[in-house]
């Protein structure tokens, strides 16, 4: 009886993992569908969609917009967020609780509220909605996530390392750039990737603040009513494979590095 119980957990978990993957597999499969306008019924296998991705209207332009928006927001959010994370861990200042709350709230607020709020503000100021307003919005909600990620890294940074830097004649800026920053790079990179992913896939906040501008998620949503072209599946699958490849490379190279360190030492 105990043997059965032991397997139950694994079976349950395997089923849950399959559950997670079903729509992904479905989306990828249907990127190969020989669909006309609507990609609902399976017609036949073709790689035409992959070869001619930009054939469907707006698919590629919206994808390019998403990349642009994600790129700019990531740079801005990562820069501002990293600075805040360092300040939070390494410095004493007043209004610490208020600052922490201010950083936490965007993560706790439903996207509808964030989106509607910004849209209302733009409306009142008479600002034209477009790509720039989307970038402003994305940067805003990415900052908190960057702070969380980088803060975790700064917290485990041994202060003795920076003290050693100072002890060994490093001026404050030398200590920062030669000791602190290189050790923070993995955390900053992770934060940047997270920010990019959040921005790229964002729909709700974007929808409220886009005006006429089209990002990829927005394209999918507006096309949902009439039928999403298979090319959209191609883009999504392409992004998926690229991301998985990146993660696998990171994990594998990390494992190889660890193995090399263990052997050589």
């Amino acid at each position, binding site marked *: 009886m105990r043997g059965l119980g032991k397997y139950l957990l694994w079976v349950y978990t395997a089923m849950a993992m399959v559950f997670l993957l079903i729509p992904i597999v479905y989306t990828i499969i249907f990127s190969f569908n020989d669909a006309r306008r609507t990609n609902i019924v399976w017609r036949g296998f073709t790689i035409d969609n992959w070869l001619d991705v930009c054939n469907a209207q707006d698919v590629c332009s919206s994808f390019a917009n998403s990349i642009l928006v994600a790129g700019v927001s990531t740079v801005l959010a990562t820069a501002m967020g990293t600075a805040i994370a360092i300040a939070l861990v390494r410095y004493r200042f007043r209004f610490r609780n208020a600052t922490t709350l201010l950083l936490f709230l965007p993560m706790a607020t439903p996207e509808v509220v964030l989106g509607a709020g910004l849209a209302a503000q733009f409306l009142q100021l008479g600002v034209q909605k477009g790509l720039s307003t989307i970038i402003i919005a994305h940067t805003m909600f990415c900052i908190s996530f960057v702070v969380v990620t980088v803060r975790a890294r700064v917290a485990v940074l041994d202060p*003795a390392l920076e003290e050693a830097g*100072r*002890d060994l*004649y490093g*001026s404050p800026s030398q200590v920062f750039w030669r000791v602190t920053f290189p050790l923070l790079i993995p955390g900053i990179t992770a934060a940047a990737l997270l920010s990019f992913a959040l921005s790229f896939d964002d729909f709700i906040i974007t929808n409220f603040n886009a005006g006429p501008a089209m990002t990829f998620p927005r394209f999918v949503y507006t096309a949902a009513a009439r039928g999403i072209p298979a090319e959209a599946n191609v883009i999504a699958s392409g992004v998926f494979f690229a991301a998985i490849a990146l993660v696998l490379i990171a994990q594998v190279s990390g494992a190889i590095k660890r193995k090399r360190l263990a052997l050589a*030492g």
Partner: protein
Amino acid sequence: MASEASAKQFAEAGADLSLVSVTKRFPGFTAIDDLTLEIPAGSFFALLGPSGCGKTTTLRLVAGLEEPTEGQILIGGKDVTATKAYQRPVNTVFQSYALFPHMSILENVMFGLKRRKIADAEQLARDALALVELAHVATRKPSQLSGGQQQRVALARAVVNRPALLLLDEPLGALDLKLRRQMQLELKDIQSEVGLTFLHVTHDQEEAMTMADTVAVMNQGRIEQMGAPEDLYESPQTAFVATFLGQSNLFGGDVTGSTASVVTVKASGYELRVPADRAVAHRGVVTVGIRPEKVTLHQAKPSTGADETVVGPGRVVDASFSGVSTQYLVDVPRLGEITVFAQNTSLGEHAKHGDEVYLSWKVAHAFGLADAPPQEERFQADTNTASVAVQEREKLEAELEES
């Protein structure tokens, strides 16, 4: 600027260090209280004390990692109190080694040289690594080295800069016994070879005594006694030093007589004599102390001369064989439990639990203290800085509540 220039001209030999009335206060407690200290150039100086006594804080003040609340710090006669860590000709070997994980060993050792723009940094670094016999790991990363190797790299990284003063913060704490012994000898060798002034901070009294020329025992932010290891050990001047440095048997009593050569103290019915020049006080309440290894155990009442003190009879309460010696605990009525270390010079002949024995020691070996022995608690109180701060705060809060 003068301070940067002094960091550039490095000592070919060490410089002396002066702390003048240095006080360091943290929110809630005082770590160092009016400390004045002089360390001559070229010496190996050990700052010894329990956790929380302020020795690490003293080190950080000298390194420039903290600023004193009051007082001055002088290196080689120059006042460096206001200079920053990177401007001082001082280097530290950290307790955790603090080797930069993202740089190779060679880059670690070159770090200080490059910041000071010293020519030929790479060759100097390689020489330093050769000094600690680690030239072959120059391209590895710190995580690939063992604890002992990391410690040697940390030493090389500091020494290569030829600082006027080298600070060592409990550097041998994480090493096992054999390795620690080895490193102690190596450190002594390097120090005399290179001629630097070493300031070594430790809570391990054996380490301090074997390595240092001068030892200062620190307690609660103050120096209790300072001098050569042997002087400190054989002639302690406070109860703290007597009990922290090795063990002591202490007996308190009133002085019943005092001559030019001897002070007599009546303790619990026994007349104990102390040479006058080995007693801190000659009047009032004096604590007589004798080191356990100076006490001889006798199975029968010994016939003794005037230069010896005999106590007993007592019962052996505990006998622990520890290889080199046997440690006895003898309960003598009215005097209490006396510790005796008897070197195992022969096979087999040991007193056993329950035996009735007599104890004797030479009067010349006894010492006299003015203060009472500290209360022995069953479990030692927490003495790390963080808990000391917490305890102080709780005391304050309790006082506030009562008032």
